[in-house]
């Protein structure tokens, strides 16, 4: 564990080098909240409720999603991993007693600590403007289930990014695949609109896909869009998806290594 703690600390330091980038991104992302406010405000004008939720509840959903993404979102891990493979940097990990998945997960965790802190700064700037519209439920179980759901969401997001990064073993250029998957994840993860606005049959089908657990699920728990029974059942499905994706990531790594050729001195 000590080596992964060191990887975390080194990751923290290297991410702090780019703190101004993270800060600029987090402050710019406030514009996204403004977009949500104006766009959904226009949709709700003349409609007290849409899909059973009022404007304040929908705005709360998007603000919570905004904050969670800073803490649990995989932003460019796939790109970093593919660069490691393309440039032969993974060779050093093959020669050392270190698990590449665990190493990358440690670096991912450190990056999220930095981006999460800066996300909170962005929230602090935006909060005075949105505070009057936010309605958070006060059930204690939402925190108790929301925190493990967030941790599993982070693991799912990271595992998917890891698998896409691994594609560099087979393809020279993986960004096309990454952005293609991002389009699917953005919609089916509930980042464009709350998934419960979909027709009920489609919503039920989507709730069995891993994308549902990438953003919508923890946000819906914390903002009161799903009840206790659905949250508990969802947490079990989410844990299953996280386990499946970690296994897939390991399998892809092993298959990829068979194709890998370490060259040079």
């Amino acid at each position, binding site marked *: 564990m000590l080596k992964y703690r060191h990887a975390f600390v080194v990751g923290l330091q290297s991410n702090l*080098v*780019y703190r*101004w*980038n*993270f800060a*600029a*991104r987090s402050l*710019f*992302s406030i*514009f*996204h909240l*403004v*977009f949500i406010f*104006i*766009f959904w*405000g*226009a*949709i709700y*004008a*003349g*409609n007290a409720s*849409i*899909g059973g939720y009022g404007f304040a509840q929908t705005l709360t959903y998007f603000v919570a999603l905004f904050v969670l993404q800073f803490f649990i979102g995989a*932003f*460019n891990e796939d790109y970093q991993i593919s660069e490691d493979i393309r440039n032969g940097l993974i060779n050093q990990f093959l020669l050392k007693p270190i698990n590449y998945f665990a190493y990358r997960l440690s670096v991912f965790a450190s990056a999220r600590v930095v981006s999460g802190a800066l996300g909170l700064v962005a929230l602090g700037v935006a909060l005075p403007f949105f505070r009057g519209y936010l309605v958070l439920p006060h059930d204690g179980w939402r925190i108790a289930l929301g925190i493990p759901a967030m941790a599993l969401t982070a693991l799912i997001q990271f595992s998917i990014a890891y698998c896409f990064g691994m594609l560099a073993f087979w393809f020279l*250029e993986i960004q*096309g*695949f990454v*952005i*293609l998957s991002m*389009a*699917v994840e*953005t*919609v089916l993860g509930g980042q*464009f*609109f709350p998934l419960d*606005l*979909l*027709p009920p049959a489609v919503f039920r089908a989507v709730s069995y896909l891993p994308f549902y657990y990438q953003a919508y699920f923890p946000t819906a728990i914390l903002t009161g869009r799903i009840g206790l029974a659905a949250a508990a059942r969802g947490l079990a499905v989410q844990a299953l998806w996280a386990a499946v994706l970690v296994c897939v990531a390991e399998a892809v790594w092993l298959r990829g290594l068979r194709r890998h050729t370490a060259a040079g001195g």
Partner: protein
Amino acid sequence: MTNLSRYLRIWLASTRYSLVRTMMFRGDLFIWALVELFWISVNVLMIEVVYSHTSTVAGWSKYEMLLLAGTSMLIQRFLMGFFWSGIFEMGRNVRSGAFDFFLAQPGDPLFMASTRKLEMDGLLNSFVAAGLVVYSARRLGLHPGPSDLALYACMVACGVVIHYSALVMSMSLSFWITSSQGVEGSYFTLMEFSRIPREAFSKGLASALFVWVLPVVVVSNAPARVMLHGFEPSWALGLCAATLVWFALAVAVFRSGLRRYTSASS
């Protein structure tokens, strides 16, 4: 005139190079065309979902909103097709020192850097976006005349110039900060506003900022309104003025950044 024809020849040479390069990586073209198509579909799906719960948004019907979204996408696909790769790589090139390559070329560095690569996937999907505009116009029963279509094309071109300028300014930040990684995301965040009808902005700070200071709303609303309501002088003149101001600002910021550039160590 000679200068203009020289730049046209340079651009045609870049186009030829891009076409040859694209044909060498046909699989890549297919994937990226699919990516663009997916993003267009995602936006259309969002409109479908929203309008399954309401009949109007800021007074705009579903097909008017699709027309607006199609126009916004058309402008973005042109930007992606003609300029995206060159401007996107600018950040990395400045950081690595590879930007020297453009300084050594026989032309303005901004022109050389931003027009070097054409992305065929973006240009292919501009047909899909145009198709969405045509489909929406037909569903709305619109019959624009040749002058309306010409004005629409001019306004789309103005929109491309404004998007280009905003992106150049975003990426020029790489002359000042350690890495521009993710800065392009700020461009996409701002451009989200181009999918919102002007009427959604009530008078106040948001209206002043996103309609007038940052013309992200005007960029797509002005051409869409030409199709819906015909020529409106205030919108046309406002867009032309914004185009000139934004382009001048982008050139000024880029040149100011370029003065800080000190090759590989910058």
